[in-house]
């Protein structure tokens, strides 16, 4: 590390910009990687981590900005081209061929040949030699799939390093490893660091980032928040960079403390599911917005999924305000109980892209009524036009396939789908992610309106400012547990950041 202090960066991105229809995914981002360092890249979903990586490796064409390798401008046309420059990438899901042998995977595309035939012996010998550098002594003639994910991960790294050798990008390599395997992977990373490689490490586990990285770069909403040396920053400051407001915090005393203890609409006791979210207690009143704050993978989406029956709870029970027990083991039951859920990933879990705006809006209501009683076209159209107007959905008409709309408008269609079912409890998972500023404000206003009409909402967001703006209470989730509940004047981004970051401290309030 010391030798890298003054030297010019190995890999540098200068003002990289990438625009997708409807969103700016990267907005003038700078990034530099030194030889012999592990540089962590941090940010929430949609912050631009993967987009940056893909621009660096040429998988995406960037719209603006330069990429410099050893001070010279390069323009990789794709991942293979990037490999030629010395930039290798290993993804979370190992993209090797599981049914080939370890040796074949290592040398695929570069097999040693003898008289035009692949020489298995030479290939295996070479594979053994390569892997021994990584402390792996395994039978390279066995198929890749017979080894654990951790070993496969190391093999993928070995292949990437052999083919490229200057820069190694690790995209969430530890996501499916246990702690022992993570240690093994870190040993490999450390030894590569000593060999002078520059390593980009993407992960959302803060502990791991503090253990392995030398510097940290944080992205947020496609912008660079900052780059800091790991030893100069603590967890609170880091979470603040990821979620909080960079400016000085005004302590917000907000007038949203509930007008007296309203009647409880729903009460969940000991609700949870093993491996997803530890059992929690939660009471929600009519006309109340409960915010959920936490980092990616902390259990915030899992909370929503357990409540909505996507992943059925295996402990605890749910009751209505009047004491009747609710069955919530599938989305259908949750919907019957008056719930609605806008999932985080609109594309895969939310809209039905090829169906029209009208059909998407009618879908949940139609599913609840049953297939026999079709909502007449006229009513569907009236319903759709009503919400197109109310929510200001920008579409030429209700018969447009929803996949052609922008992210913000798709989100509004999702909201409309639930609003026509007239739910009493609406769960919104990251309702404002990846949508433009205008739509953003409209959705926040809508949340406030719905709650004023007496609907109860649970809103998950990584925008802590937003949570401050509309939540009556905020749950803080960490390590798949509900660790704190803030209400009234306690709801400040500072308090949330502290509760999210604190590894030992329990409730902050």
């Amino acid at each position, binding site marked *: 590390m010391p030798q890298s202090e003054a030297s010019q960066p190995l890999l540098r991105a200068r003002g990289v910009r990438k625009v997708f229809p409807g969103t700016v995914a990267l907005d003038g981002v700078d990034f530099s990687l030194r030889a012999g360092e592990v540089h962590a890249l941090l940010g929430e979903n949609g912050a631009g981590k993967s987009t940056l990586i893909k621009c660096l490796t040429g998988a995406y064409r960037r719209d603006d900005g330069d990429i410099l390798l050893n001070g010279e401008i390069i323009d990789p046309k794709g991942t293979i081209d990037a490999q030629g420059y010395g930039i290798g990438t290993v993804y979370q899901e190992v993209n090797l061929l599981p049914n080939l042998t370890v040796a074949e995977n290592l040398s695929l595309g570069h097999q040693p040949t003898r008289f035009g035939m692949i020489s298995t012996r030479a290939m295996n010998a070479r594979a053994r030699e390569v892997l021994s550098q990584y402390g792996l002594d395994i039978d390279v003639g066995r198929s890749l799939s017979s080894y654990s994910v951790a070993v496969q991960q190391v093999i993928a790294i070995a292949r990437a390093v052999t083919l490229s050798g200057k820069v190694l990008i690790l995209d969430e390599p530890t996501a499916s490893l246990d702690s022992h395997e993570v240690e093994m992977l870190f040993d490999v990373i450390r030894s590569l660091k000593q060999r002078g490689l520059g390593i980009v490490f993407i992960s959302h586990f803060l502990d791991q980032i503090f253990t392995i990285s030398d510097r940290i770069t944080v992205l947020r909403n496609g912008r660079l928040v900052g780059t800091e040396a790991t030893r100069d920053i603590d967890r609170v400051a880091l979470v603040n960079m990821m979620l909080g407001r960079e400016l000085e915090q005004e302590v917000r005393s907000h007038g949203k403390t509930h007008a007296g203890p309203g009647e409880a609409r729903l009460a969940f006791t000991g609700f949870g599911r093993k491996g997803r979210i530890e059992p929690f207690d939660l009471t929600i009143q009519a006309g109340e917005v409960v915010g959920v704050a936490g980092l990616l993978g902390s259990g915030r989406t899992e909370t929503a999924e357990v409540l909505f029956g996507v992943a059925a709870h295996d402990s605890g029970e749910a009751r209505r305000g009047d004491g009747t027990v609710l069955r919530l083991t599938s989305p259908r039951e949750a919907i019957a109980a008056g719930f609605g859920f806008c999932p985080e990933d609109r594309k895969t*879990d939310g809209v*039905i892209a*090829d*169906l029209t705006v009208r059909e998407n809006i009618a*879908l*949940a209501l*139609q*599913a609840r009524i049953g*297939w026999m009683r079709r909502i007449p076209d006229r009513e569907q159209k009236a319903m759709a036009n009503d919400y197109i107007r109310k929510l200001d959905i920008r579409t030429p008409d209700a018969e447009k396939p929803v996949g052609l709309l922008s992210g913000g408008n798709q989100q509004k269609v999702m909201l409309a789908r639930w609003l026509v079912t007239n739910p009493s409890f609406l769960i919104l998972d990251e309702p404002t992610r990846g949508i433009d500023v205008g739509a953003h404000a409209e959705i926040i206003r809508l949340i406030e309106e719905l709650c004023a009409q007496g609907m109860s909402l649970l809103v998950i967001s990584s925008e802590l400012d937003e949570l401050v703006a509309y939540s009556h209470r905020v749950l803080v989730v960490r390590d798949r547990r509900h660790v704190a509940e803030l209400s009234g004047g306690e709801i400040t981004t500072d308090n949330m950041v502290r509760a999210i970051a604190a590894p030992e401290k329990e409730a902050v309030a």
Partner: protein
Amino acid sequence: MNGLVLFSRRIWPQLLTLAVIVGLISVMFPGFFDISIANGRLYGSPIDILNRGAPVALLAIGMTLVIATRGIDLSVGAVMAICGAVSAWGITEGYGLFPTLAMALSAGLACGLWNGVLVALLGIQPIVATLILMVAGRGIAQLITEGAILTFNHEGLIFFGSGSVWAIPTPVIIGVLTGAIVTLIVRRSALGMLIEAIGINLRASTLAGVNTRVLLIAVYMTSGFCAALAGIIAAADIRGADANNAGLWLELDAILAVVVGGTSLLGGRFSLIASLIGALIIQAVNTGILLSGFPPEFNLIIKAVIILIILVLQSPTMRTVLVFFSSDKAAGIDSEKQKETVAP
């Protein structure tokens, strides 16, 4: 009105293709359109196409729904054999016509239930799940017929293969009625939209509260039911159940009919009418080859070539090529326009 315009636009290419093929046949075989009535039944090549095409058309009805859910049902040919065998067995055992029909149709529904459970509850890929019954089905049919061709002479059952109502052959009537009923059920209720939703995005549909498992099972059962109807017709037509050959390879014709009908194998939007026209196109090609007097050994190859031409003309790549060459490039963006250019 708008719906009618959209609808006619949707089936335009298929109708045109059918017209071109019928036109070609009538050029090569001038007597093609001669239709006569004998013994109170219509005869003639067009009637023959409808009559012979009925089993594939029936299979295509069920197959369209299955494919719309992003599935596929390879077992329909074998299910035809099973249901044909059941009906031959039932009638020769003296169960009477209606109990026999009920048994055969129930067998089809049971086969569909099996496929549906494998796909919807166990999450097995449709192509693998239905392959099981495709292979095992003929074995089951052989068990029922005890390895022989089980013949029968029951007039009531034979009626379904070679009888006629108001001079129209029974298979045609069954095909048209089934098509009409299924279309009505699917489009008058919300089933059509829910099936399309499942095919486009299963997970999102489940999260929106669509009862995806039940619907998937129902769709495979519909396919089994249609295969049972086709199986009864096929058995009644030859007055016997041939476990080895009844419905052989017809699953492929049915899939082809759906594809020619323009429903994507990736699921989603579907049109039953277009699939039915697709089935007629395939049968017209079959009949046309026979009529035109080519040596029979060329039949399969000619059929393959014709189908290939149809599919190439319908392919998205070809569309862009044709748009490129068409004179009004600006207007060519409208995809429906392109289809019109494509079909001939």
